[in-house]
């Protein structure tokens, strides 16, 4: 009970911070909008496959920026405060939940803008929206530990991209595969297996992050 309260308090604190520094949040939204607009200027109405690939790449870039910020804004003093108040696992779960929320909003936003500008090739809207939220959250979760590592190195999003992109490729490949069925009426063998793979990959990354973060946060 205590732990759940602590986690919720951490998430609440992050949301509160976001609310008070609204310019950063709007900045992120504008980042999404301008990225999609650049895609629109270059491609106008791309083919289904291009649409799908571009969508996930855009989401990848958004998640790097969104997640990197949340760790870099924690000052040393504040980290010391967390260190005394809660366990590393609680802190990590709190951060992950916050990233899931943030990325869910961002991926929905990204999806809306894609439909708006680049046309709507989707047949199964609901399926794709669900997958889009799930994929966005998976990226947010996977980048959480890497953001902590990059923040320790005192570096910006560039280091996070170097560390993260190779690791995200399996996730992105799975997501593009799973989303293919939203574009056309095709029989896709092994779809359920791929959903299971996505789920177990997420669980695997969460477990690994919780175990490893303990060593990062001592100084």
């Amino acid at each position, binding site marked *: 009970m205590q732990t759940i309260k602590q986690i919720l308090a951490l998430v609440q604190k992050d949301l509160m911070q976001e609310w008070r520094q609204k310019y950063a949040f709007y900045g992120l939204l504008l980042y999404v909008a301008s990225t999609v607009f650049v895609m629109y200027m270059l491609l106008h109405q791309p083919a289904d496959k291009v649409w799908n690939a571009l969508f996930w790449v855009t989401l990848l870039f958004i998640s790097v920026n969104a997640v990197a910020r949340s760790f870099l804004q924690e000052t040393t003093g504040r980290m010391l405060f967390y260190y005394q108040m809660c366990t590393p696992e609680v802190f990590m779960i709190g951060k992950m939940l916050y990233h899931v929320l943030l990325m869910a909003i961002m991926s929905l936003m990204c999806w809306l803008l894609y439909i708006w500008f680049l046309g709507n090739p989707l047949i199964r809207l609901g399926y794709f929206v669900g997958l889009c939220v799930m994929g966005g959250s998976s990226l947010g979760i996977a980048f959480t*530990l*890497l953001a902590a*590592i990059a923040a*320790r*190195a*005192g*570096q910006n999003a560039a*280091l996070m991209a*170097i*560390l993260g*992109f*190779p*690791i995200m*490729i*399996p996730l992105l*490949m*799975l997501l593009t*595969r799973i989303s293919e069925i939203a574009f056309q009426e095709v029989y896709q063998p092994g779809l359920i297996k*791929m959903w299971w*793979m996505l789920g177990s*990959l997420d669980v*695997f990354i969460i477990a*690994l992050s919780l175990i*490893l973060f303990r*060593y*990062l946060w*001592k100084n």
Partner: protein
Amino acid sequence: MKTYWWKALCIVLLLYTLIAGLLMPVPAKDILNETIRNLHFHVPMWFTMIVLFGISCVSSIQYLRKGSLQKDIVAVETANVGLLFGIMGLITGAIWANYTWGAPWSDDIKQLCTAIALLMYFAYFVLRSSFTDIDKRARVSAVYNVFAFAMLFPLIFIIPRLTDSLHPGNGGNPAFSQYDLDNELRKVFYPAVVGWILLGIWIAQIRIRMRLLNLKSFLS
């Protein structure tokens, strides 16, 4: 002499691999023909790479638990030599593919996965070089090293299942195990694997000893 036996074994096994691997009779198959001998040189590179990365990961875990800098040095140097073997595996594979698939690089899923794995370990060295504090560098890079090694598993077990590969044994291509009915290839392949792994460990060991001497003179 007792501690050197495995080095002697390594030399003997590699000499045997070179001589027998190039001269012994091999099953004659279409397209593959004599290139089947690459089995003794290309595939053991991957075994060695995985073994070295595994040692690197284990020493990183040991570093996180105990905090001795020696373990950090072991982790770096094994990763370094593992990377070398990975690159050699890629090159031997590309040469082989040039003759069998018609091009050194054909976007085969296993080639892509290897490229990703190598990128992950290049990132490990970039991460290390971004620190000036030795202890901090050791701790943070150890965390990344464990994470990277764990993420190799989806690369090996998930992605190859999503796509067909041109490699023998995938996508309807027969595997080597169906060829060597008379165990001709196996007689060379298994010693070759052991020999190459020992060579990898040997190179890593020399580099580790060098780094430890450097550390000693640095501290004194």
